[in-house]
């Protein structure tokens, strides 16, 4: 019996991406808030790592506690159905951050 095309399921995916903060922007105050605000648009679990420390990208206090200064490399990782989209949006957000 023909059951129709195979049903597509939202398969959880994981993605990783390295981005660099603009040299004159630290991940504090409003830049950190904009970063968190971007992460919160997605369902995926998103983490951000700096110099061996890792934080939930949707938690403003955790992101502030990273103390990432201008020019720092951020290791972004996401797990979930929109992981790729989340990291792409965060990469765009980070490159456009201003003090």
């Amino acid at each position: 019996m023909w059951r129709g095309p195979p049903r597509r399921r939202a398969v959880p995916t994981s993605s990783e991406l390295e981005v660099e903060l603009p040299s004159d922007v630290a991940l504090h105050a409003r830049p950190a808030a904009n970063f968190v605000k971007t992460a919160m648009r997605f369902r995926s679990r998103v983490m951000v790592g700096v110099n061996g420390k890792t934080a939930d990208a949707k938690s403003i206090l955790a992101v502030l506690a990273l103390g990432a200064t201008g020019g720092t490399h951020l290791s972004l990782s996401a797990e979930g159905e929109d992981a790729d989209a989340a990291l792409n949006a965060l990469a765009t957000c980070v490159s456009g951050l201003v003090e």
Partner: protein
Amino acid sequence: MSHSFELARGLARLASQVAGEGVRVEPAGGGPDGSLGTTDGSVRDAITRADCGQGVVVLGDLGSSILTVKHLLEEGHTNGHVRLVDAPFVEGAIAAAVMSSAGMELDDVARAAEEARGANKF
């Protein structure tokens, strides 16, 4: 809002500095003669000063200061978009102020303050 105006003012200054000028952080607290305590009037005035039309999040230092706010909210002295949050005083205020600076909605600002409970200092 704190039993000590100095404590409330110090936290308001800290949160303002972290979040920037676009966010109104207003201290309230202390008794009328500089003693410790909280009064309806000081809290109501601070809420009015903080209100830009998009909502106000209120944090208190200890339980009995919370009663003052609850009393105000029940009496309807606010226009319905004042949110009392159950959050750590310092971390909650910083989280709320910073998220507010990014233009988050009241619900998200309140949630960020309450989630501050789970943040480790180190």
